[in-house]
């Protein structure tokens, strides 16, 4: 869905997204890192289980909720990636997607 205009030369950290190790620029948000790797949806909705992904990118829509290091319902657009971070896409109200 999105691409980088150019490599900004930022230092990289390694995170896992659904168990897959990926290299992402340090300082980037979890939402940006996940979007650039083409991973969508981020979760399924709590009520009817439909797919969702980031909408606002500024912390007001709460549609980018993912599990980070075992804690569900974290706002991916508000959390910065860190070395070794485990990001999991979320199923419904919380808990990991299969």
């Amino acid at each position, binding site marked *: *869905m999105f691409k980088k205009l150019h490599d900004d030369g930022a230092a990289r950290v390694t995170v896992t997204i659904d168990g897959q190790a990926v290299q992402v620029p340090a300082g980037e948000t979890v939402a940006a890192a996940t979007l650039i790797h083409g991973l969508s949806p981020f979760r399924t909705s*709590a009520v009817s289980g*439909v797919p969702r992904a980031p909408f606002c990118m500024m912390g007001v829509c709460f549609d980018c909720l993912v599990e980070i290091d075992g804690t569900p319902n974290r706002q991916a657009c508000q959390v910065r990636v860190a070395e070794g971070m485990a990001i999991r896409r979320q199923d419904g109200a919380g808990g990991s997607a299969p």
Partner: protein
Amino acid sequence: MTARHELAVIGAGPAGLAAATTATELGLEVAIFDDQPAPGGQIYRGVERTPLADPAVLGEDYRRGAGLAEAFRASGAAYHPSCGVWLLTPEREIGLLDNGQARFVTAGRVIIAGGAMERPVPFPGWTLPGVMTAGAGQILLKSVGMVPEKEVVLAGTGPLLLLLAAQYLRVGVRIAALLDMTPRSNALRALPQLPAALSAFGTLAKGLALKREIRRAGVRVVKGVTSLRALGEACLEAVVYEAGGREQRLDSELLLVHFGVIPDSNTTRSLGVRHLWDSRQLCWRPAVDAWGNTDVEGFAVVGDGAGIGGALAAEHAGRLAALEAARALGRIDVAERDERAAPARAAVVKELRVRPFLDALFQPAPELISRLDDDTVVCRCEEVTAGQVREAVGQGCTGPNQLKSFTRCGMGPCQGRQCGTTVSQLIGHTLGRPVEEIGAYRIRPPLKPINLTQLAALDSEEGEAA
């Protein structure tokens, strides 16, 4: 121990940065709390360290933010980035989530400069992955240099949509179409406001230049678009729009929508500040005086969070609130405050002169809310549709807070940020009563998600301190 600050500023956008800088220069001890990792707010996001090879593509207005951030850094105000506010009490206790750690501070005065958010306007399919806001697209561009991979569809109304289109064109992004949903009747309705707006000729000229730039690039601009639908199963596949009574379809994987900006009022609501319905900007805003003071003692609200005025007005309003804080805290007297305030006051007046024109020109069509399809999701979190809201009203529900118990509307993680404005209007339309009589959701802390582990850590720290 709970730290105490003379002045706390919440938010590091133009209003907050200017307020903190001015207050520090006036001799106040200032702490600024911002949930972002770097100063600038949304408008000047990433301004200190742009990921773009040529930041000029963002436009000359963006550069002003660098000067604001620099002056702020030099001022000596204590800066707390990645530090969100989850609690605010009338006693001026502030609950913070500081880089994931919960803590409390208190303050002699508080200036809230929380800024704006994009107006959420529901339409069929707006919850699909691949449908985002224009602001989201711009945040990705400014902060990490990310742009749409394939052709993007832009839709809605407002200056930000034009600015994003121009910025995208400058970095080579292909725009499938710009669907202009500005009602055709707006131009006529805005006309009486034009003479006053002409004093802000520069602002108007910039807007026209953006339109020219978009036209010259050969972007397909569709005027008079009256409805929008996003189609797809797992993600967006196509956008269907109606213009001149005819439906058209565009295949696309990314749709960015924008319907103007409104104050992000959850913080001020939770504090119990009185809010007014702004019938020009179609949103709630806190009632403030000329210095930003609210009806809650010791709290001021400035910038777009107090009503949309733009980045420049926000900056000057921040300075006014800082002067008022210095007066209230006994550093300067009324005469000195008023004298020092004159340039900022004049600048605010000048900046706001163009607003009535812009507000009328870009006001979204009221039908987007009043004629919402019954099947369209209004509350994204609890997945409550417009039809369910109307049904609840039919069963005797008279306001947004009652609607919560009827439908759970507004009770999900976003705490009504996405559906609040829509719901107040929709209930008003359904009952045939003005929005100000309908009211809005009561907002309760925590304003940001905070988990039990973080709260428990707070308790044990307090215990040790005692």
